[in-house]
């Protein structure tokens, strides 16, 4: 199942990070989609709860200290409709995660692409890519 999803994951994930703003079930202005983070480490937990599943990853920072990253994913409901299960990622799995950092929390990010240790795409956090501005406008109507 993961391989079947991989192409869409890459394309959508890249577009997500490039987008000026992204909306899921609410505005996601709490994330800075221009601040791209790339983290490699081991999964410590996949939190399978609403409104957003969360992937926690231990990775070393520039000073060699272990940081436990908190990556926001779509809801379990959305993930299940893409064929994912609550054990699709397990503690100890080696992953590379790309995403957008929270504006005020350096260790929290919105995941856009997740790859396995070999770099094969596993998963995308994208639920929507959208420019929220009305089509006609420089100023709101």
């Amino acid at each position, binding site marked *: 199942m993961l391989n079947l999803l991989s192409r869409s994951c890459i394309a959508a994930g890249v577009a997500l990070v490039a987008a000026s703003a992204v909306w899921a079930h609410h505005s996601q202005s709490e994330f800075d989609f221009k601040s791209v983070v790339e983290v490699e480490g081991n999964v410590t937990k996949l939190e399978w*709860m609403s409104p957003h599943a969360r992937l926690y990853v231990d990775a070393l920072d520039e000073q060699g200290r272990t940081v436990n990253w908190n990556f926001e994913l779509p809801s379990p*409901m959305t993930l299940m409709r893409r064929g994912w299960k609550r054990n699709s990622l397990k503690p100890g799995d080696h992953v590379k995660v790309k995403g957008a950092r929270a504006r005020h929390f350096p260790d929290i990010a919105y995941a856009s692409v997740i790859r396995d240790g070999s770099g094969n795409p596993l998963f995308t956090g994208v639920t929507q890519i*959208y420019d*929220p501005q009305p089509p006609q406008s420089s100023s709101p109507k």
Partner: protein
Amino acid sequence: MKAPAPRTREGKPDFSGIWFANVPAKDYCKEKDCIQEERMAREQINWGINMQGGLPYTEWSKQVMVKRRANGGRDDPHTYCKPPNYPRAWTLPQHTKIIQTPKEMVMLHEFNAAYREVYLDGRPLPVDPNPTWNGYSTGHWEGDTLVIETNGIRDDMWLDIQGSPITESGHVTERLKRTSLGLMKVQVSINDPKAYTKPWSVTIEMALQVDTQMLEEICLDNEQDVKLYQ
């Protein structure tokens, strides 16, 4: 899916089923080979997204919307896991399940396992309704179209992510027409003199979802975004 709409034993169109916005899978893709699976109605962002000139905001409601939009999701009831409210709920990424009987239509919504009742038994709308998230809804038939009238909406409701308001003076008319087995058109008309200079209507298309079931999404289970809006 192109077969004619099913009918009830009474001969009325039967809207029963699980529905979700009929947005092409590639609608939001920015890559040539994108096969993105997730779909959402554009109107989730702004009901006037395809309307020439946008929604006809009054000066008051325009100021409200601009402030809400500038704050991102910081003020959105949805961010705080408040209930889904129709007609906004039609556009959300969760599904609606319709259960139809001759006297009542019930809409189940996945977000917070919510429900909405639409009375089809001929009762009038209340004159002085108690304001609620979904308001008070009655429906009647005009040919094969189910016309749902709603009043009694709370004064602080959001219609979309950018914060287009609807007030307690608002009256919502939804015209449901099942055009085939697989599709339903929902025309949403808003008449709210406090928020809009004139009535407006937007039609969204919903697609029958046959390869899934209702999946519970209880928002407060693990809400962690509010703290990020510093």
